């Protein structure tokens, strides 16, 4: 029986690749729920066993229940009939099974029937579900919607909605994009008008490209302050689906076909405010988006894992010139590169999860208002640091994983040759599914914009120092020196970059800068985990030795002063 957790040793490795004990203690509030809830752990060790159980179960459901149906779900897709969206049969079954397994409320507190799972556990679960059916991620993987309600809504709203998410009775949607507000969410126009008496709002307007817009619980970003342009006029609202929320159309898409992408019209829909007015985009949606970005990074790793698995199995079975094609160097090279990059992205995701969990949990500690004196100051400082790390690493993870996924799904078809181009094999589907990952929740280009600030502001440098300190004593000295040499090169390059007075030049080479820094971070992380076993040692060495020339290339490009895009765009494009 296929089990995506057990069948892939890197999942268990990843679960144990980082010391999570501080995160677990904070998440479990020093194990205060042990004995109250049957599934609450009493120690770090027990929590780790619980996570392994949860992931083993997620792997079993992904491999045994969901994956076998994914081809037919891709074929069938959801249907819009008389204004009602009907999921494909396989999607309905998957939601039921994931609910039966208690996996629909993974990050939620136990009092709302959740599993109180930290981000790194959710991330690995999302990866496996996406490996089985990439489109299901927009329903399963966006548990961030429930998490956003948990973080910012009031107790009454949480009590009403969160248990329903956990039980799978409802699914949600983050209703942000509009025809004229895609990447630029500040331009949102959907109106929210307050009824002073009831304190409720009425929503009117149109939203587009809404994943699972047919969900029952909707988080809607809308303009509550008509006289205020930009982000400061936007608030976040909570409403339910119903006759006033019309699904006008389902998009016909290249990939993730099992996921319904809706165009929606709100006609005097009654909605409740979430949190405070005017914080919609600046606070809540930013938090929601960052969670979703990390989820997409996991989705990308899952799709890549599926593509790699298919490519390897094809390479083992397919014979040409009298032997399996896995024997040919060109094929081997592709397979090894896929595996190196997939495990790199997964390791980066785990590291990002660590900073995200630390940020969230330390914030929660501070909110309790118990800490005083030095402890308060220390916690405040650490929280500020992790907040900066998470803000830089989240877009970096998404960028790295989703671009990796493009290459891996591309090469998976290449390993298959002509067969891979046909519908008879699943790799063409993975290739189609992969494409959305570097578009939604912010395109790769926007991830660069989100990540570059941390690099130029010094967060990156502080983070590299933390990575240095986190290295075990017995890492390979040659590799470490090699990385350090390139850290120096990065600093040189960055100094040059910052000194460029022209914004257009900096924007032009921001992508190279972020890629270069991401490669260095992944090199450190690979080196850190390389001491765990010989296989990882080989992979780390391979990754680092192949990344360094890339870093030199990007550095040279940044300092090249090649500026035709700025100076000669019109002449070239004409």
């Amino acid at each position, binding site marked *: 029986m296929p089990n995506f957790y057990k069948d892939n040793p890197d999942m268990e490795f990843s679960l144990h690749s980082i010391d999570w004990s501080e995160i677990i203690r904070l998440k479990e509030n020093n194990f205060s729920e042990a004995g109250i809830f*049957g*599934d609450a752990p009493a120690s770090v060790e027990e929590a780790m066993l619980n996570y392994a*159980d*949860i992931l083993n*179960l997620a792997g*079993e459901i992904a491999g045994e229940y969901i994956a076998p149906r994914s081809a037919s779900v891709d074929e069938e897709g959801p249907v819009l009939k008389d204004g009602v969206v009907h999921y494909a049969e396989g999607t309905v079954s998957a939601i039921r099974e994931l609910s*039966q*397994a*208690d996996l629909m409320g993974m990050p939620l507190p136990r009092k709302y029937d959740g599993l109180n799972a930290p981000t790194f556990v959710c991330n690995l679960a999302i990866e496996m579900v996406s490996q089985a059916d990439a489109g299901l991620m927009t329903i399963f993987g966006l548990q961030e919607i429930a998490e956003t309600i948990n973080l910012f809504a009031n107790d009454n709203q949480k009590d009403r909605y969160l248990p329903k998410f956990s039980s799978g009775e409802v699914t949600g949607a983050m209703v942000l994009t509009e025809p004229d507000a895609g990447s630029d969410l500040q331009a949102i126009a959907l109106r929210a008008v307050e009824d002073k008496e009831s304190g409720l709002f009425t929503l009117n307007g149109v939203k587009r490209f809404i994943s699972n817009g047919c969900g029952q619980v909707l988080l809607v970003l809308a303009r509550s302050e008509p006289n205020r342009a930009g982000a400061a006029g936007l608030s976040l609202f909570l409403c339910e689906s119903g006759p006033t929320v019309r699904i006008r159309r389902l998009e016909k898409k290249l990939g993730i076909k099992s996921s319904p992408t809706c165009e929606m019209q709100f006609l005097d829909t009654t909605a409740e405010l979430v949190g405070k007015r005017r914080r919609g985009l600046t606070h809540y949606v930013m938090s929601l988006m960052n969670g979703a970005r990390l989820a997409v990074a996991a989705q990308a790793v899952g799709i890549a894992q599926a593509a790699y698995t298919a490519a390897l199995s094809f390479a083992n079975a397919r014979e040409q010139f009298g032997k399996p094609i896995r024997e040919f160097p060109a094929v081997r090279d592709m397979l090894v590169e896929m595996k190196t990059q997939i495990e790199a992205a997964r390791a980066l995701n785990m590291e990002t999860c660590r900073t995200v969990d630390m940020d969230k949990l330390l914030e929660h500690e501070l909110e309790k208002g118990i800490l005083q004196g030095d402890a308060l100051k220390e916690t405040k400082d650490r929280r500020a640091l992790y907040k900066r790390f998470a803000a830089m690493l989240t877009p970096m993870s998404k960028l790295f994983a989703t671009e990796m996924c493009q290459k891996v799904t591309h090469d998976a078809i290449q390993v298959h040759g002509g067969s891979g181009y046909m519908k008879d094999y699943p790799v063409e589907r993975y290739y189609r599914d992969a494409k959305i990952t570097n578009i939604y929740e912010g395109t790769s280009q926007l991830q660069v914009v989100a990540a570059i600030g941390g690099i130029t502001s010094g967060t990156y440098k502080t983070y590299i120092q933390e990575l240095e300190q986190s290295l075990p004593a017995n890492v390979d000295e040659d590799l470490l020196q090699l990385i350090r040499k390139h850290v120096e090169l990065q600093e040189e390059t960055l100094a040059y970059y910052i000194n460029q007075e022209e914004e257009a030049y900096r924007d032009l080479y921001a992508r190279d800068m972020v890629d270069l820094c991401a490669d260095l971070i992944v090199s450190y992380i690979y080196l850190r985990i390389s001491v765990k076993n010989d296989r990882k040692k080989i992979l780390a060495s391979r990754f680092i030795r192949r990344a360094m020339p890339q870093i030199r290339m990007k550095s040279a490009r940044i300092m090249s002063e090649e500026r035709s895009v700025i100076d000669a765009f019109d002449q070239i494009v004409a």
Partner: protein
Amino acid sequence: MQCIVLIKQVPDTKNITAKAMRDDGTVNRAALPAIFNPDDLCALELALRVRDQYGGSVRVISMGPLRALEILRDALSRGADEAVLLSDKRFAAADTLATSYSLSEAVKKIGNYDLIFCGRQAIDGDTAQVGPQVAEKLNIPQATYAQEIWKENGKVFVRREVEGGYEVLALKTPALITVTGGYVLPRPRSARRTIRFRNVTAKPEIEARWKKENPDMPAEELDKKVEAEASRCKQAGLLIDVWSVDDIGADIKRTGLVGSPTRVWRVENVTLHTGESKKIEPTEDGIHALVEELIHDHVLG
């Protein structure tokens, strides 16, 4: 509806190896991984659906060595309310007659039930006899090869597989049904229950652990420790009752090897060779020749 499900741990005969059979024709259980018998998993699923829809409870019983606690844990993780293990050397090496006798005595001890669910057959012996024999011994009606069960106007209906189709039977309860695998997909385990029941144990298991960890402890002290831990587990809802022959008041002449008249008379080794292969040319003529050959051999039509 009070439901009882009879489940069995079986060697995974899908992954069979040469060592799987002993020379005397019995199965070498140690050589194969032990799994939840697939039809029994479907029986459990139907019982859970009945409970979820009409209320009541689901209790599972298995007979086997302590290792069978694994599938009882699994059943609890999927939603069963209670589990009992029949485990006693005097139950061992039972044929279908002795097994059905022992199980029916255990069912009688539980008493209050409306429906008993069994898998149609176990993948080790493939006899499909135990379910029907239990029904006979309890003197209750039975429906075999069931796929679905529901209530209508207070009556229980079962859809059962028959050759070329299905038939629907109305059943008087209490009744026993045997369930055919492949029609319903068993629900997955629940994460919360899996975590909770990971530490579910049984008294003999606690005893074995204490003995292993404290080989020099006097018997009396050991008994006390075991008793104390068992009662702690019981209170926490983490103890599976283990019943012996005496616990269910069974006649030892009718249980285990003593109660089993079945003997293996002769073992014939059938070895299937895969050495022969035939290349079919990917042409119209090649395909026609293949189809004709298959019809001739009665593989088709």
